[in-house]
């Protein structure tokens, strides 16, 4: 059993009260003024991972792209942990081992999601259970579509979206932020879910140019709405390509440059999760991780953070610890999606 290290004090603070900013709809004029102040001009915005993480302020709201073990902006999360960020309120449609890392490191004490475990293969996350059941952090549960509708309302610049699920369930009963209405057109019952406009979105893509024009292959999850909804977007990319390449197929651009505030080229930036068409999840690493942290959600997790996050010199150092064999095998499987 790994030695239990003294954990930093911030990890133990109590969950914040209900009226955190992720629960409240930002007034339209505030949203507009925030956006008017952003530099939306066509300009290069390539930075280092360290610089990118420095743009995330403690106590702010963070939307995380991808879903479960796919296109997770893992390098950015890894860097936020190394930078000892605090009290971030994080939203993601489905959150996986990245949620463990955020809670256990003390970076986040509030998760907004529809599903939180390491992965369906491994049952419950003991790390999540430790933090949520212990009251050290909050996990606000919404239906998967509700998370999508909240980002969509945020992306569209409206305060809510109407929807027809969650009604009648206890999921809605525990979300006082929603409003049940009788439709003014049809008198049907509808649920209105509030817009979610995170202070910053973290998104990983297969390729983008130095301005932030991004192409996403395969599963796009909710990343487009998230990018449009957020007040800032930090984008990591497997590869930076020329603006000429982007302009040759403009209908393949999924996120336009003017919603992107920083671009970082990070090969394997979703490791140990997958990046569509580039690599599949690194399941050997993940299985060892799950075994270690679920057997000891405090000490095992701290040891993982020490060994894999705080320890390595840089992101390539982290990748080296996963190991070349697993990176090569994951890449081979990743590319196989295009074998047909």
């Amino acid at each position: 059993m790994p030695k239990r290290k003294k954990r930093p004090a911030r990890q133990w603070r109590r969950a914040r009260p209900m009226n955190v900013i992720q629960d409240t709809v930002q007034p339209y004029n505030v949203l507009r003024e925030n956006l008017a102040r952003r530099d939306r001009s066509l300009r290069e915005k390539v930075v280092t991972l360290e610089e990118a993480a420095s743009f995330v302020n403690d106590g702010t709201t963070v939307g995380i792209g991808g879903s479960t073990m796919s296109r997770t902006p893992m390098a950015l999360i890894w860097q936020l942990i190394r930078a000892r960020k605090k009290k971030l309120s994080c939203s993601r449609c489905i959150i996986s081992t990245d949620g463990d890392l955020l809670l256990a490191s003390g970076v986040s004490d509030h998760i907004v999601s529809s599903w939180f475990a390491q992965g369906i293969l491994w049952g419950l996350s003991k790390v999540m259970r430790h933090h949520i059941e212990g009251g050290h952090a909050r996990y606000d549960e919404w239906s998967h579509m509700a998370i999508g509708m909240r980002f969509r309302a945020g992306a569209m610049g409206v305060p809510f979206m109407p929807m027809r699920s969650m009604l009648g369930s206890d999921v809605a009963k525990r979300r006082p932020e929603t409003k049940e209405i009788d439709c003014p057109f049809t008198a049907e019952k509808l649920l209105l879910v509030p817009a979610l406009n995170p202070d910053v979105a973290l998104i990983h893509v297969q390729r983008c140019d130095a301005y932030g024009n991004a192409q996403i292959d395969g599963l796009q999850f909710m990343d487009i709405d998230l990018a449009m909804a957020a007040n800032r977007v930090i984008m990591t990319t497997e590869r930076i390509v020329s603006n000429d390449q982007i302009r040759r197929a403009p209908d393949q651009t999924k996120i336009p440059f003017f919603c992107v505030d920083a671009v970082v080229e990070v090969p394997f930036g979703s490791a140990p999760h997958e990046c569509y068409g580039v690599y599949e999840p690194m399941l050997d690493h993940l299985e060892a991780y799950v075994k270690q942290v679920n057997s000891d959600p405090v000490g095992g997790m701290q040891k993982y953070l020490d060994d894999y996050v705080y320890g390595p010199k840089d992101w390539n150092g982290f990748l080296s610890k996963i190991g070349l064999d697993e990176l090569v095998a994951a890449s081979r499987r990743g590319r196989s999606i295009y074998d047909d």
Partner: protein
Amino acid sequence: MTKPHKYTASELLAILAARQLKDGQVVFAGVGVPLLAATLAQRLHCPGLTILFEGGVIGAFVEPGQLPPSTNDQRCTKRANMVLGSAEVLLLLQRGYVDVGFMGGAQIDQYGNLNSSFIGDPDHPKTRLPGTGGGNDISSLTNMIVAMKHEKRRFVEKVDFITSPGFIRGNNTRAESGLPQGGMFRVVTELAIFSFDDVTKRMKVLALNPGVTREEVQDNTGFDLVFNGQTSVTEPPTERELSTLRMLDPDRLFTA
């Protein structure tokens, strides 16, 4: 072809679940046994079955031995007809393009309500479960087939928390809650196949699995089951069903 073969409880579950699907249907399948069972049906009696995954996939055709570890992985998209956003694929349920939602369940009650959120008091839970994912959306918006393990602690009179609504408190309470469409259609376990009473919306036994008695089902259930005269006995898995299933999941990822 109908003589008994050796099979595990989870193999039986996958095969009986697959039999519930009809060719030409559009089915929204969760990961695990549902994904496997839908894929099995597609290889057997439903070549025209359209499988949807929550990650954003329409018309999937999962490869043998390449089962995805979640419905958000690229493996789900191999030879699919369409890949789209995950809000978009969930909205297909709301618009009505889906015939059947097909999920697993951790805890179910007599009205088919599912709990995957909390064991105990939600404010001070004994266990915080992962949560709804798309489960709430699927069960709110379409007809449901649930495949799950049959244990007394999983088949309870009233779930601690309604994550994914069945018929709420029975009768018309589902529609009155704002869910006029869909509802529980079938529950499949290793012991029996269940449907729901047309009026009361209580769970009733439709068919017993091979070699299972009424008493055995009732003993493993935390509420009084409705039996009626039409309870039949299910045909055991055929050799073709078993061999196809084992070809699809050779590593026994979901049929351990």
